[in-house]
């Protein structure tokens, strides 16, 4: 006799406990009340005529009935199953597909994964006595250790959840120890995720086609004509065969959600572009809503709208119309020009531009300095060098992205000292002197060893690009990273994580990073002492959205065994045990009221 919910030892302990409780109750029954009567003569006659069973036997009969009922109920709770032979003994390797599409709902309100787990449990129940099992899944959420008994296999199945991120792969079962018995591999899948499957396995299909819309792309970009304005692009895929009317909504801080209806053709895509300039900066959430949707995971996506879309820049110069004009060309810049004598008289700026001016103390905002003077916080200039040539620069550095210094001529420049300073040299002269340097420490700064009066750089086409790149680099926030749903590796050690949707998230520290479990699309913020990292966690995968791309037939689970096969009368054993206990309970009730038992 095996038990479904408990091990045999635990089931025996439960039955023994129930028996002890019953015996205890019988022994603790209060003694009957003693009443004095004139004579028991007539009572003796009555009782003698009625009493057919000896009083002691009645007590034992009652106790026996109660014990059988209690033990029967305890065993029914333990879920017994018959040991009757059910065919040839062999080991079963049960592999459950838990790729994201297995989270799709079926028409009965349960997911494909639920059906797969039920089918796996049915395989265990139908296995012959002595069979051993190995349980594995395609997303490596529950890795079984070797071949185990039915109880442990069921526990392993209980631990399998939907795998959300990563590429599903069929586990390598070749390393399992070979047993004397035969072996069969059963794969419970919807057949959507492409995997290399070994030969000879039996596939149990839990596939059922159904409608599904999902967001496959969600991005935010600045308008080409106005960098301060942004628009969102949402792409929706339809996995069903019929066209579907859907509503796309984008919500975020600063204003009410925007909604747009869209018709998505069957097995096709549709896109929506919405202006999001009126939202405040931060995470924006896109959602697609339809009347019938089988997979929720891909119905939501997040994108990040930049916070600093307008830059307040203070230009401190004794007078430089070229620089002023070049800065005003950037539509994001709100420029304030002031003489060096007026510096420090108030005003809040996102960045500074110092032209041949260097304050003794570093400003709180990042700064671009042309020809810096002597100051502790910035690289001091050495003696001027006449007509140096720009020999090399770093085109991959964001400040010099798309900026060419090949045609830049310098009448004179000061080489910038870089020794004992954590600065990056962006451009050098032919003799290796630093002409442009940058510091990434907060507040950032970029310094050129020349003023605009000593060069033709301001007349170059790349000069506005240089200014725009510099402003962008000086004022950029930490970059927002993107990741897929599931277990996310964030390059931030010992961080705490929280999502705007899920709240606090489960993390696990690993050397130099933190693993975050993100079960649904979310905008996740990780915080460690002195550092912060933001991550967009989305699905955005047409392969996940297309839940109907299966080569398996749609419908009832094909290849699965019945849930409780070969049970007497078509009912599980526990059902019969519980029925017998209930019948005995009824018999005890009748016997008690007829005074056959005590």
């Amino acid at each position, binding site marked *: 006799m095996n038990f479904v919910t408990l091990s045999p030892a635990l089931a025996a302990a439960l039955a023994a406990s129930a028996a002890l409780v019953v015996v205890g109750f019988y022994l603790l029954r209060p003694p009957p009340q003693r009443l004095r009567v004139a004579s028991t003569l007539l009572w003796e006659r*009555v009782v003698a005529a009625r009493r057919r069973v000896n009083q002691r036997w009645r007590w034992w009969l009652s106790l026996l009935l109660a014990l059988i009922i209690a033990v029967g109920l305890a065993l029914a709770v333990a879920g017994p199953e018959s040991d009757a032979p059910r065919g040839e003994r062999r080991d079963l390797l049960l592999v459950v597909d838990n790729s994201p599409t297995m989270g799709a709902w079926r028409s009965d309100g349960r997911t494909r994964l639920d059906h797969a787990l039920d089918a796996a449990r049915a395989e265990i129940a139908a296995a012959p006595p002595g069979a051993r099992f190995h349980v594995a899944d395609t997303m490596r959420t529950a890795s079984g250790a070797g071949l185990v008994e039915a109880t442990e296999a069921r526990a392993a199945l209980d631990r399998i959840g939907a795998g959300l991120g990563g590429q599903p792969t069929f586990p390598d079962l070749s390393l399992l120890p070979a047993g004397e018995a035969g072996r069969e591999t059963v794969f419970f899948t919807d057949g959507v995720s492409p995997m290399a499957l070994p030969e000879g396995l039996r596939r149990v299909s839990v596939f059922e086609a159904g409608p599904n819309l999902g967001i496959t792309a969600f991005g935010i970009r600045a308008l080409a004509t106005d960098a301060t304005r942004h628009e969102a692009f949402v792409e929706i895929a339809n996995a069903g065969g019929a066209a579907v009317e859907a509503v796309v909504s984008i919500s975020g801080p600063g204003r009410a959600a925007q909604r747009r209806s869209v018709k998505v053709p069957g097995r096709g895509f549709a896109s929506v572009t919405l202006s999001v300039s009126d939202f405040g900066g931060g995470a924006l959430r896109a959602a697609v809503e339809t009347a019938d949707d089988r997979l929720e995971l891909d119905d939501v996506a997040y994108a990040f709208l930049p916070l600093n879309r307008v830059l307040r820049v203070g230009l401190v110069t004794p007078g430089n119309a070229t620089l002023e004009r070049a800065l005003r060309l950037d539509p994001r810049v709100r420029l304030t020009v002031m003489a060096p004598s007026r510096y420090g008289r108030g005003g809040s700026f996102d960045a500074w531009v110092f032209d041949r001016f260097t304050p003794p103390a570093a400003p709180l905002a990042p700064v671009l300095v042309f020809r810096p003077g002597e100051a502790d916080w910035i690289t001091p200039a050495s003696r001027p060098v006449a007509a140096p040539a720009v020999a090399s620069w770093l085109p991959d550095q964001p400040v010099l992205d798309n900026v060419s210094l090949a045609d830049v001529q310098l009448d004179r420049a000061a080489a910038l000292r870089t020794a004992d300073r954590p600065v990056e040299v962006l451009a050098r002269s032919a003799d290796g002197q630093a002409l442009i340097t940058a510091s990434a420490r907060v507040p950032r700064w970029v310094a050129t060893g020349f003023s605009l009066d000593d060069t033709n750089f301001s007349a170059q086409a790349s000069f506005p690009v240089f200014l725009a790149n510099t402003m962008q680099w000086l004022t950029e926030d930490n970059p927002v990273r993107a990741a897929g749903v599931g277990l996310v590796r964030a390059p931030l050690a010992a961080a705490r994580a929280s999502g705007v949707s899920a709240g606090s998230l489960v993390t696990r520290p690993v050397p130099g990073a933190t693993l975050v479990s993100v079960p649904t699309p979310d905008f996740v913020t990780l915080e460690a002492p002195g550092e912060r990292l933001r991550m967009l966690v989305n699905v955005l995968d047409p392969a996940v959205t297309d839940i109907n791309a299966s080569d398996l037939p749609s419908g009832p689970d094909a290849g699965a065994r019945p849930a409780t096969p070969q049970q007497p009368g078509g009912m599980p054993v526990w059902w019969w045990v519980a029925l017998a206990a209930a019948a005995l309970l009824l018999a005890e009730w009748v016997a008690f009221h007829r005074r056959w038992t005590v």
Partner: protein
Amino acid sequence: MSTTRSLFSENFLRRLEHLRLVTRRPVAGHLRGGHRSRRTGSGMVFADYRQYASGDDTHHLDWGIFMRLDRLILRLFEEEADLPVYLLVDASASMAHGQPRKFDFARQIGAALAYLSLLNYDRVSVVAWSDGVAAELPMRRGRTQVWPLFRFLEGMEPADGTDLAATLRGFFGASRTRGLVILLSDFLDRGAFDAAAHWLRQFRHEVVAFQVLSPEEMEPQLPDEAVLVDEETGASLALEASADLLRDYRAALEEHCRGIEAQCRRQGWTYLLARTDAPFEDLMLGALRREGVLR
């Protein structure tokens, strides 16, 4: 039972004084009394004629017949004698049961009957019995014996078991004048009533049997499970009370009572069931008169 007045109301006593015990057969008393006897003598009721014999009292010669027929014919009259009354009160432990106690109720009946017997110049003997004769008050006669008799009743207390047959055998085994036996008991006797009745039948006593039962015995209220302890023997009996069991008990009690009544009726005796919760005066002035015990 401190005084007669505490036992009975004034009105009840006045009504009791107008009653007298009635016997169905001539009594065998040898003292003059108010009851008809088998002997002929100087009574008031004409009985028969017979030839005068030498030595007869000439006061009863019928001189009219002598004048017409010239024969000496003697007129005979029934002689009136007193009635020996034997008051047998069950003083077994079972009589201590009930509220009020069956024993107290039986003593009250006995006191009332003894009172009116003494008023009518009958001889009264009181016996307290359980598994034998526990105490005996010898024959008393006359009004002056009321108080000694009451004190005797007052001094009795229930104890021991019940054995009516042994009691009657012991008491009537000695020479007792035939009379009226008033038997006051619950008759919860493990011995057969028939065996006891044999002794009364043998000596041709006239019997009035009072079966005294308490309402607790007639309509018992028991918990679901109980152990019944016998007042007399101390034996215990465990049982589960159910409606069926209580119904069977009531049937058994009724059968028991009917059996005793049938025995009494068969002998021409009087049987009365006396519930301790019934009005006492109704029993004395109503039931006893209906049964012809009192007139």
